[in-house]
């Protein structure tokens, strides 16, 4: 049975509530999957600590029963589900957000980066639902050697990468990269989802 998950809007609200509480350089380690993954509230000024997640639902700004009822039924719209890693077989993957926050998750072999990122409220879109047709799930592998260990992108992925904004030598589509033992410890950067003030907009 897939773990129950909130809809992505709900998750976004949660990440929004919690996002403000983190600052550049924070590092989070969590095991996945969790029922509704959230991060524990942090007091201002405490942002240099390392945090672990709790499974408590945070208090949402307008958590009405209508709201929750409506959204709890739309989970079919969410992207693929994560599998529980078997004890001892957890693989680590780290996402670096555009603000520089690092989040490390313990995941199962076979899960793809888009599903992992979305299940943990990271700002990662998958407009085509992971079918390699939109390039919104673009990630950048930090380490060239690790990049070389990944299975080569196929033509379809390369075709979409050609359209990705801010393409680099080690870019991949998150929905096409599946976790495997030999890439345990993979670290990827999430590019910004906006272009505000980026040079390319001035062309």
């Amino acid at each position: 049975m897939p773990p129950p998950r909130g809809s992505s809007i709900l998750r976004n609200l949660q990440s929004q509530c919690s996002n403000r509480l983190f600052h550049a350089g924070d590092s989070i380690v969590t095991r996945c999957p969790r029922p509704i993954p959230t991060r524990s509230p942090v007091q201002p000024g405490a942002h240099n600590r390392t945090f672990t997640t709790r499974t408590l639902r945070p208090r949402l700004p307008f958590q009405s029963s209508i709201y929750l009822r409506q959204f709890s039924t739309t989970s079919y719209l969410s992207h693929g589900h994560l599998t529980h890693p078997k004890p001892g077989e957890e693989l680590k993957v780290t996402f670096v957000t555009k603000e520089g926050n690092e989040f490390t998750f313990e995941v199962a072999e076979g899960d793809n980066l888009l599903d992992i990122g979305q299940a943990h409220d990271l700002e990662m879109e998958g407009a085509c639902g992971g079918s390699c047709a939109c390039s919104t799930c673009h990630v950048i592998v930090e380490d060239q050697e690790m990049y070389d260990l990944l299975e080569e992108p196929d033509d379809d992925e390369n075709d979409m990468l050609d359209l990705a904004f801010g393409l680099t030598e080690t870019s991949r589509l998150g929905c096409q990269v599946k976790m495997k033992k030999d890439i345990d410890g993979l670290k990827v950067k999430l590019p910004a989802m906006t272009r505000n003030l980026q040079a390319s907009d001035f062309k």
Partner: protein
Amino acid sequence: MKYILRHPLTRSAAWRSQRTSCNPRFINTLHQPGDPKVASRRADAPFRLAIIGSGPSGFYTAYRVQSKLPTARIDMYEALPVPFGLVRFGVAPDHPEVKFCINKFDEVARHPNFTYIGNTPIGSESLPFSSLLPNYNAILLSYGASKDKTLNLPGESILSGIHSARAFVGWYNGLPEHRNLNPDLERSDGKAVVIGQGNVALDVARILLTGVDELRKTDITEYALEALSGSKIKEVEVVGRRGPLQAAFTIKEVRELMTLPSVGFEPVPPSIIPQDTSTLPRAKKRLMDTINKGTKSYPLEKNWKLSFFSSPTAFLSSSSNPGQLSHIRFEKTAPVEGTNGDKVVGTGEHKDVYASLAFRSIGYKSEPISGMIEAGIPFDEKKGVVCNTLGRVARPTPEGDIQVPGMYTTGWVRRGPTGIIASTMMDAFDAGDNIVNDWLSGVEFLGEQGDVRMGWEAVKREHSNIGLKAVHWSDWDKIDKAEKERGKKIGKEREKFGTEEEMMAIV
């Protein structure tokens, strides 16, 4: 160089240099949160946003605003009864995965602070633009591009057999406006020419060349399927005025055409297309390699080709059938030296391409909506965009550009009619961020500080006088369900209603 922008409210705001899409000069419009002259607003101050247009740009902006300012009340106005803009009426039926984004839009629409108001074109004939002004704090113009560019060539608007790609795409995708296009696909010459080399041109070529049994599995309209099953089109020529390196189409669309069963590709002469691609940038290299590789065999049962350096000059008919297109005259062009092929000039040499069917696919076009200019929103007719600075509507003046309070724009009407859903999404996220940042930083919006704006609750009183029934999300749910049921009966995911009457009958 230094440019100064005067903002009607705060002149001494912390300026930041940006560039408008109307005025190629740097201007300053952004009010930084914490600006001493601007009292910031509380996150729970009531905020009402009207969004005009329910395409991806409108929905992705709503999504961004919802996630940054969940208390914002958003009303989305859509001219048609049904939502999603070009995701429904543009994206090709054989690209169902591209339409997956509507799942996200559906979530956005079910937010308790969101109201969808379909069947409500904003503009003076129906609901005047001015009726939104007193009822919202901010208005987002995300109404896309509802027209298309014309070539203005002899014969273009007179001869039969010439269609705009927008009309053809709208026709096969069930856009009510083009329900009765009925292109004649059964003429005996079996040849179609597509003018323009963007992805829309390749969509048109692919739909003409794909076997109907493949299309039958998609949500293409039944009437289009019927017309296509009688089609005699065996050859499609896609013509560009510049060279292969300047073509606007992207590799995925080319590859799709190269892999269509029983469709061959006529090789591009090596004198025209680079053979050594090793020094080209990645995307261009891969694209040239794919074109050079072509199809395994040629010719096959049906074929297509790409022609370059040909600029259309006239649509002509034969004396035996003066009302019907028989050939298109092109002037050959040549690259201008020193421009890397980006510019071409006519060589004076002409050639005629014989075809009884032509599609003009040279881009869509946005227009101002009626009443918008009067409301102080500047529109750049030449570029076909609302004048803006990264999504903030801004009026160019000799002293610099002035931000129009409370007015924002995004999507094709902001950038011009190019860009895929991914780029439209990023654009929309920018707009959403700007709206929320501006609001929280306390800059001037529509109305006085502290006004409570009633949004749709007030607008609907006026709306009820115009005799149009507003379509809400629960109504769209019914249309959606009915379309899916119709589709199920014939083994398709959905069978769209082709007219607004049919849609409204369900509601």
